[in-house]
């Protein structure tokens, strides 16, 4: 079993993976992003319906996370990449959370 054959095997598998075109829902994601944004823009006016500021903030954070996840998964292709690449941007988010939390707490 030489290195060459192993490499060819990998190359062949990669080529095969590229040939099978996964249907990527680019347009659906685009519509979803637009719809969420329309919702977001209206959140500041929710105050007049008695929805407290804290709930608005939570809503906006949730929509932002949803939009960010959509872009990262579909437009940045993380959904189609090997699992390990998904951890590359995910692991640092834990450290970022510690940093932001410590900064905000007085």
């Amino acid at each position, binding site marked *: 079993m030489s*290195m060459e054959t192993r490499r060819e095997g990998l190359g062949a598998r990669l080529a095969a993976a590229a040939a099978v075109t996964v249907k990527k829902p680019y347009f659906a994601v685009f519509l979803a992003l637009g719809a969420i944004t329309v919702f977001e823009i209206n959140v500041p006016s929710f105050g007049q319906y008695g929805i407290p500021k804290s709930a608005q903030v939570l809503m906006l954070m949730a929509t932002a996370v949803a939009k960010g996840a959509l872009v990262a998964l579909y437009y940045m292709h993380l959904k189609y990449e090997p699992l390990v690449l998904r951890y590359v941007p995910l692991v*640092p988010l834990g*450290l970022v959370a*510690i*940093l932001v939390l*410590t*900064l905000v*707490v*007085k």
Partner: protein
Amino acid sequence: MAVATSTALPPEYPGIGAFVKRWVTTTDHKEIGVLYIVTSFSFFVLAGVMALLMRTNLAYPGASIVDNGTYNRLFSTHGTAMIFLFIIPVLVGFSNYFVPLLIGAKDMAYPRINALGYWMIPPAGTLILIGNAPVGWTGYVPLAIQEGASVNFWLAGLLILGTSSIIGSVNFLVTIFKLRAPGVTFRNLSLFVWSVLTTQLMVLMATPVLAAALTMVLADRLLHTCFFSTFAACTSSGQALGDAVLYQHLFWFYSHPAVYIMILPSMGMISEVIPVMSRKPIFGYKAIAYSTVAIGLLGFTVWVHHMFTTGIDIWVRIPFMFATVTIAVPSGVKVFNWLATIWGGKILLNTPMLFAIGFLSMFVIGGISGVFQASIPVDYLLQDTYFVVAHLHYVLFGGSVLGLFAGTYFWYPRITGRMYSEAWGKLHFALTLIGLNMVFFTMHFLGLMGMPRRYADYSVLLPFQPLLLPLNQLATVGAFILAFGQLPFFYNMIKSRWVGRVVTEDPWADRSPTPWRSPLEEEPTIPEVPTVEASPGGGNGGR
């Protein structure tokens, strides 16, 4: 051998133009590594001279040779240069040289970006030295906002260095993840490469935070924004708008990991030296590799221990205290594994091994004094005293630099193809170890007696603590022994480069599991495979 005896200029010595051109345009990882190492050691000399001036000043009470303002500039530039222009880049230099060799890669993943990373260091160093800013290596606000234009130079220099570090870290990580030769896996990866991997992960994640903090200080200074500023320009109806503590958070989010960025590669070097000189395989390979990664991750969760006295909520401080104490565990794991490697080995006490053992003992002293200070009440007493200076110098000189010396001697024949002088090396070790303990161990006592760091003059304390004078003088004598003890090193390194015994094989081949060949012969470590002509679309955009 022919090189040494030939009368005509060998190809090694082309004209000055070709020489300059070669070194300015090189994208070769070995040559860039050498550039890093030589540049960093020159900053080591400069920053060392500054330390000597400070110690001379402290040998007598009062501003004996420099005035207070000059003293402030000396300790600031000493710290900045030693950390950012010496220890970090010199370790990057060795990583540059040896990571590709140890993983069987032909070069780094992005050779041109590698060269860019190096060439940012001379301009940045020039800016920092021109500025010579008197704000400490930490550049705390509000002082760093209040001081004159010199701080702008300091900030500009550090921002350039930060950029250099970030692009370098991407390069190292991709190289280690993607360019390992067949058979080089994470189960048998060199422990030096493991340490570089962890170090560069930390650089990647920590340095941008420093860059953001420094950018905001620069904005506060040049645009009078209100991030950290508490001055009149940022006071609204009696309340200061900026918050100086936020700068400390961002600064230490980088600078605590930076401590590990500075020591992990040295630990990696020790892990290479000890098994060879003990003629035993490393004990606990997995434990050392995993503890390196554990130190790397835990290193991000301890930064508030630098800020215990800033009035942060106690419930924020306590978890950081626990994390700080916890980090001693993986460090201890490493120390015991190194000891177990030496235990029962056929020990060769040559210069690299002596420095490795020096590293072990000094690092234990520095590490344990760090655990003392992790305790919040103890930190209240020791904060900003010479005890802190003693601790950080045991870790950075006793740890990083001794490990670096071990690696330098160990790899010297491999870089130059010649052997260093063992006698000069041992003299260097003896003077370094004696000098360093005289100057830095004494500082523990100075700190416990209440001598504050960063003061040019301690005469007001003398009536209460008359011992401060003789102890300071002892430290100064030690500093001179330490400084003059480096002369044999430079003499040895420069002289042996030209007249040292030529070595074509690993001088410790009988002890190494994987002996190497010297650069005088090409090293065909890589199985040759025909080059595939890539089509241009593969391009190399961004390289």
